[in-house]
């Protein structure tokens, strides 16, 4: 069963059940979902209005009217995150930085935590990536290098699920990519990971010593997330 199908079905069931839980009621205590809180600044609020979260279809709509100049005005680093299975596309800002680990947050309560640009955690997406043993940036720059990668998901049964892969890094020469209408000279890195039950491929576009763009697996339920570092 494909990801899109899974999400679609679940959206359907959720819609059905919403009619149960949202039976009109009132009282002194609320039980609705909480807002994300204080982590996200004004920039996200103004740009993430364009996040499209649609339950049907897997085509990601581009946020139309925002230009690079609009984003640069905020003077903050901005990452673009696209979750195809969720039909979501968001410009996200930094909520927390600890050394080389940065947590980026949307205004609607999701976060992505990356270590030197390599995804190690997500929150608020449902079947989240709770933690990961992921390669370092140096590992990803060694052509032919191998490493072990372990994902720890929170499965749909609320249980931590571990997936262990053996991965190999391939670097395919230089190329020029365009990120939000700006060209970047990058080298393309492919991380191919296998386990007995199957294989996955994460892709990275590395500019100098930093990841400019990537497509990385978050979890079995969420699928791949595409990241672009739009504003440094």
């Amino acid at each position, binding site marked *: 069963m494909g990801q899109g199908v899974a999400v679609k079905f679940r959206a359907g*069931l959720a819609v*059905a059940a919403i009619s149960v839980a949202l039976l009109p009621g009132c009282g002194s205590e609320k039980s609705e979902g*909480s807002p994300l809180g204080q982590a996200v600044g004004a920039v996200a609020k103004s740009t993430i209005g364009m996040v499209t979260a649609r339950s049907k279809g897997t085509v990601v709509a581009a946020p139309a009217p925002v230009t690079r100049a609009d984003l640069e005005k905020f003077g903050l680093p901005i990452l673009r995150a696209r979750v195809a299975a969720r039909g979501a596309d968001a410009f996200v800002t930094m909520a927390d930085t600890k050394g080389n680990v940065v947590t980026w947050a949307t205004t609607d309560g999701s976060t992505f935590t990356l270590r030197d640009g390599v995804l190690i955690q997500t929150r608020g997406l449902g079947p989240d990536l709770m933690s990961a043993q992921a390669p370092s940036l140096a590992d990803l720059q060694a052509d032919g290098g191998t490493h072990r990668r372990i994902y720890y998901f929170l499965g749909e049964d609320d249980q931590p699920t571990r997936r262990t892969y053996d991965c190999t890094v391939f670097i395919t020469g230089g190329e020029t990519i365009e990120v939000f209408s700006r060209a970047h000279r990058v080298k393309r890195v492919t991380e191919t990971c296998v386990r007995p039950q199957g294989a996955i491929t994460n892709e990275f576009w590395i500019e100098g010593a930093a990841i400019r763009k990537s497509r990385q697996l978050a979890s079995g339920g969420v699928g791949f997330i595409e990241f672009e570092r739009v504003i440094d």
Partner: protein
Amino acid sequence: MLNMLCRLLALLAFSTVLCGGPAVAEMTKSLNINGTTGLIDMPSGEAQDDAAFTFSTALVGPLTRATISFQFSERLSGSFRFSTFRDWDTLFPGESSKLNDRSFDIRYLLLKESAYLPSVTVGLIDFTGQGLLSSEYVAATKSFGDRVKVTAGLGWGRLGTDGSIGQPFGDRPALATSDFGKPSIDQWFRGDAAPFAGVEVKLTDRWTFKGEYSSDAYLLEDDERGIIERDSPFNFGFEYQKGQNTRYGIYSLYGTEVGFVFHLILDPKNRATGGVMGAAPVAVKARPPRSADPEAYDGDWVTQADAGPLLRRNLAKRLAVDGIIVENLAFTASTVQIRIRNTRIDAGAQAVGRTARALSHVMPASVEVFEIVPVVNGIGASKVSIRRSDLEQLEYAADNSTLLRDHVTITDAGPVPANAVGDDGLYPKFRWSLRPAFRMSEPLKGDLGLRLSASYDIRPGLVVAGSIYGRVVGNVDRSGDPSSSVLPHVRSDSARYAKFGDPALEQLTLAWFARPAPDFYSRVTVGYLERMHAGISGEVLWKPVDSRLAMGVELNYTKQRDTDGQLGFGEYDYDIVTGHVSAYYDFGNGYLGQLDVGKYLAGDIGATMSIDRVFVNGWRVGAFATVTDASAEDFGEGGFDKGIRFTVPLNWALGNQSTRNFGATLRPSTGDGGARLEVDGRLYDSIRDYHSDALDPEWGRVWR
């Protein structure tokens, strides 16, 4: 109103608007019109997937069957069915035109299908009722490729009434009226045995053809009552699978009838939303390294007069977004103990994690140990101690939940520290709500009404609470007829309570919860405890935080309330002392057992055995049976008290933060024997949520 009714229907069926997706490649283990795994009317040799919870409604001419089935373990499943026979007076004018019957089935998968061997199941249908559907069977099913399944079986009882091959295990004695409701052991596998068979062919991903040869002669419906004409043993029809959760069927039955069936198939193990929804937490706040900023670690701040209220206020603000209320806060320069009330998050481990994150932001750097005490009904349920440096170091570590659990201790909550900065009006003492409430009494029966509830915390652990329920729509018995039970009518006058007390004061109580000693919990509740009884109820529970075993004692003195839902006791003049000794045991993997021995409301003495399967996400399905010294004759129809119960957390389907549930207890018949007082706030379930046997399975959510 109409809108509400629509929503009620949505609640009943949970969904008929599911989006479709292609069916899975392997053939579905389909259900029959009796709501159990099988062909059309016949059972098959298969079992549903572990934990499958299904709700089936079938309509065949004058017959309606509504069934709830649960795959209790990989091999064992049980069903509860509510059947209606209409036109029951066809041959007997003057008799009631409708007969309702409730039945239990149980089945066990003896053999799983392998390359050469079929799956084999042995089952009992209606094994403890009045025997209208009673039958036993052994069935085998083998699949050929991924499109064809063939079933053959041998049936007794109803399933042995057409095409008998003899009586391999001797005569089947008639079921005496006095044995109605008891396991009909003397009948099992006795009398005529007859073979049945069928085939299932998957035509497309969604469409399936089924055909069967039935060994049920429908003697009751055809020969005795003339409500169905059975011309042929052959049934056939088509089923349509819509998504993973719904299946529809239409059949030609016995040459004369058209049958329809709808199945709702739910998987309690896995969240309908795919995962735990809800907003991300804030990141842990890292303290500066001690070498870089030694002054930050200075503990002098504890001497500041306003430190306590300030910290408490900041924590309350941070935790409010997750519905966590700070009951009180105690600290030294190196340790903080926070007592929290979790009102929204369904997993205790996640509430603990969120609290620890908030503490990392608010507490000065010198505080190294976080003691988090979840409070239930005003009393500490356990104490989770986390070292702040572990929290900081493990936040981004691989497998952080396992690593953190290795460093965390869960112990008895202990008393409230003497230096606690407590209750100063920062949390609401008065709570109220007005909500629609659905009360289900049988698979197709219930009523929907409005419940006004309110409570007031006099101090932590001392609560006044009350609720009023008024019915809006429903189809439960409101005849107002008194029951004919020879026992005191402690439960059986429900039709009177339903009719004369609407709206009714359900409860008005003063409850006192306390911790008399380590590992001991206590409760005293006084007032209008439930709809039918009022008085005083006391309970003591022994439950060490890391123990699978718990023991409890309960003692009650109650008077029976008037049916009008008001405050009086004039109608029944009945009072009684009841009480139980209870043992609770967590068998692991989500199976909980409970044994209660004592005296019940009608003065009968006996024991209740129950077993529940609980899922990490809060789903719960169980069964219970009570045997007392009240004779089967005195108990009336049903012989003894038994039933099933289930709880569905709304956030399983919705993903929002909520601890609200939908649940029901269903009994084949409600008699006066084996009836227990229903009192809110029984200790075991609420306390256990924060003990290690409940926290550990959900510990993966501590970082969520």
